[in-house]
């Protein structure tokens, strides 16, 4: 995929739309639908008659090679194939933010990201944020400020917040934090404490 041509909010260039539009090169190499016999002969193996795509990405700093159905989302691949279950599925359609991860340092919704688009990219999940036992400042701030209750939205909130500060330069006011964190729903409504946590962690991170 040609990253230069990606623009707008989905700057990482790994949205489903970009894959379907710009990703046809990959589809041409590994036909999406092919018969069982052909598949055996073809370079790309098939599962259930669907040619699999080989994804080579760095996940939380380690090289990962995984063959996936071209339709598999990054979210399902992380959770079901790579056993990284810290990333949560709250809606599976880009409406809640629970599945937020980083691709090349940018926050993306992994439920709207095809795994196949992440080859050559760095994927970071909540499991990759802490430095061994040392929590990332954002994680630490969420604990200290009680920026969570049930915790289900929390991995997404934290990944979103970290990229908001690191990749997007942070927020200059509480209102800006609120605005820029509004893609992450928290039904427990820890919102005010999430704002406190981000305000604090941002100081440490900057």
């Amino acid at each position, binding site marked *: 995929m040609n990253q230069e041509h990606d623009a707008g909010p989905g700057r990482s260039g790994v949205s489903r739309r970009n894959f379907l539009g710009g990703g046809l090169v990959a589809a041409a190499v590994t036909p999406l639908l092919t018969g069982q016999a052909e598949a055996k002969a073809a370079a790309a193996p098939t599962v*259930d008659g669907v040619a699999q795509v080989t994804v080579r990405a760095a996940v939380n700093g380690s090289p990962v090679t995984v063959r996936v159905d071209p339709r598999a989302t990054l979210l399902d691949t992380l959770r079901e194939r790579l056993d990284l279950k810290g990333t949560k599925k709250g809606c599976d359609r880009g409406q*809640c933010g629970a599945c937020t991860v980083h691709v090349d340092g940018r926050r993306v919704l992994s439920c709207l990201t095809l795994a196949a688009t992440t080859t050559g990219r760095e994927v970071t999940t909540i499991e990759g944020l802490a430095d061994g036992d040392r929590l990332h400042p954002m994680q630490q701030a969420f604990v200290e400020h009680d920026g969570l209750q049930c*915790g289900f939205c929390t991995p997404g909130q934290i990944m979103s917040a970290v990229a908001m500060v690191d990749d997007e330069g942070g927020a200059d006011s509480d209102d800006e934090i609120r605005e820029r964190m509004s893609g992450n729903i*928290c039904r427990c409504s820890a919102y005010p404490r999430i704002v406190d946590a981000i305000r604090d962690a941002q100081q440490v991170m900057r």
Partner: protein
Amino acid sequence: MPRSQVGRDTDRVDGRLKVTGAAEYSGDYRAADLAHAHLVTSTIARGTITSIDPAAALASPGVLRVYAAPESRLALYEVTGQAAGFTENYLPLKSDVVRFHGQAVAMVVAETPEQARDAAALVTVTYDAQPPRTSIADEPHVPAGPTISGAPSSLEILAPGVGSIDAALAASDVVVEAEFHQNVQHHVGMEPHAILAVWDGDQVTIHAGAQIPGPYALAMAQRLGILPQSVRLITRYVGGGFGARVVLWSDTPLAAAAARELGRPVRLVLTREQMFTLTGHRSHLTQTVRLGASRQGVLNAVSHRSVAERPTTIAFTMTPAHSTSDALYRTPNLHVDAQVAVLDIPGSRAMRGPNEAPGAFALETAMDELAVATGVDPVTLRLRNQATAHPATGLPWSSKHLDECYRLGAERFGWAGRSATPRTRVDGQWLYGTGMATAIYPAHRRAGVVARVRLLDDDTAVVSTATSDLGTGSATMVAISGADALGIPVQRVTPEIGDTLLPPGAPAVGSSGTHATVPMVVDAARNVIAELKRLAVTADRSPWHGAAVEDLRYERGILHGLGHSLTFGRLLTTIGSPGIYKESAPGGQPVPGYVHHSFGAHFCEVRVNRFTGETRVTRFTTVADVGRVINAKAARSQLVGGVIFGIGHALLEENHLELDTGRLASSTLADYLVPVNADVPDIDVVMLDRPDPVLTGPLGDGSEDVGTGSLGARGLGEIGTVGSAAAIGNAVYNATGIRVRDVPITLDKLIDHL
């Protein structure tokens, strides 16, 4: 010496696990040879299934089973007796009858979740549809039946010589009458329901989010036709409850029955869309409140009637006047009445402040209208009508500091400078206004709760009880209460919850978890300390061998007496014991003769855009009288979260029931709106921290070895939600002069009148 953490800010014991993604929710568990299920749901609201064609799904890759209604392979049974009210009244997938739009009609099981989902889309169903009953206005109204606490849902108390409530109203100087409507609301816990069922012989282990683990497992056993002890339910991390995880829905029995039939573990995860029809909602309802008062605003008559839906499969009995209009204000004439209309709509369930949130919206809006009609300040009006005895029963409260909530809240918020005249504060395109309302929520103490305390030879303790932590902080509460009772630091206490192998725990419902749990933890600690002393005087290698227990004193984890002092860990090591444990007696009811409620006062400021009608909440202060506070940090979060539910109630949340089809119109988070960060200002919450001297038993006088500092608590999961929507609506009135009685207050309801 450790100081007690009770009432201070304590980080959640599971905070680290939650911020690192290591906390495992039901859908995160795996099992060898796991198969994956996906449901197909009905597209009519009432009728029968005439055919289900599974052929395409069966031919689809990886598919192991297509179960289709009426399905004979799944063994599911009626739930009877007490547990019957704890689940739906039909056997999922067992008959061809469709009872609501979005009911499970087929289930595909496949090797992978994707295969199951894809194949489910290939199942075709044909129906013989009948017109659904969908209108609470048009369907016959019947009495709602007893309230959740067993009180009658209709009640009339008249002053001597008064013939009827209508007569009492007619005789009042000032009368306010208002009708309120709200649509269906949904719990929307962020974790969609997920179930993993693993059989081992005739034993099944279920991973599922459940607010009341014990009864949930009991109903499950009956559904599966097995003994209660054959079901183990693990519900350690739960992604929000709010009422949707109280009863046994169709999802868990279907997953477990499929796993049994297939001979493999099965995982079923509901989609967000399915959550809207398969896991309950708050009923839509209409309420009419009539208040009669003197010109000074002193109430002479209160009447509160409601009509709500009653789904056919399982229903939460909606009695919105219960614990609101029948409890809040002193009045010589009181009339409450709750009716329902049977509809073909998905099952309903209690949702945060189930009766009280809608009830208080109606009553507290009407009180604001009375304040306007009489010219009495809203705070003054409420203080003037404060009840000192419970209006419906005449009983005193165990603890009530509502007047202090009003006064402190008014002071913190700066209520005094308020203009009662609408539309007096304009700033550019924004109209500003302020409003207030009262919060009230009953405190029920559930019987039968048991806690167990283990003392270990490494000077740590384990406190166990099968309650559930939905994000409430109950695991941390258990640790703090245990630490206070044993006089040791919280870090040395491991709480164990969320597993039916543990002693029966408190239901995580009705704001009752905390006050049902703490006395049992204290009692178990008391018993284990007695056991420790008994061991100290009987064990051979103990320095106190042969002494009398009266010679020993336990203090802060250490036994003292006769010139010796040993920590309990040291003593256990010395006598060669790895640990000892004791359970509490099963918890009972509080002493009779009192009513128990928590109280609060909300104050808020909104701004409404003059041109678009958009409403933003700009300031919010809540003062809550919730008894003893165990963990100020988590308690504040609970109250703040409750208030934000009120913001959703007032401004955002509704699902329309389509009258023709019986379909709930919204089924995603893009069309059912819940508050997001930008909708929420900072929320100022204060807790009075006044221990309730009755609800959890005598408070303790410091004379015992066991610490009693956590007694006197009341739960607080719901009180923030009650009344907060009314405070916002009242502020909108103050800003605009427009009274909206049909929530949510969306801009279309304002824009034509601005």
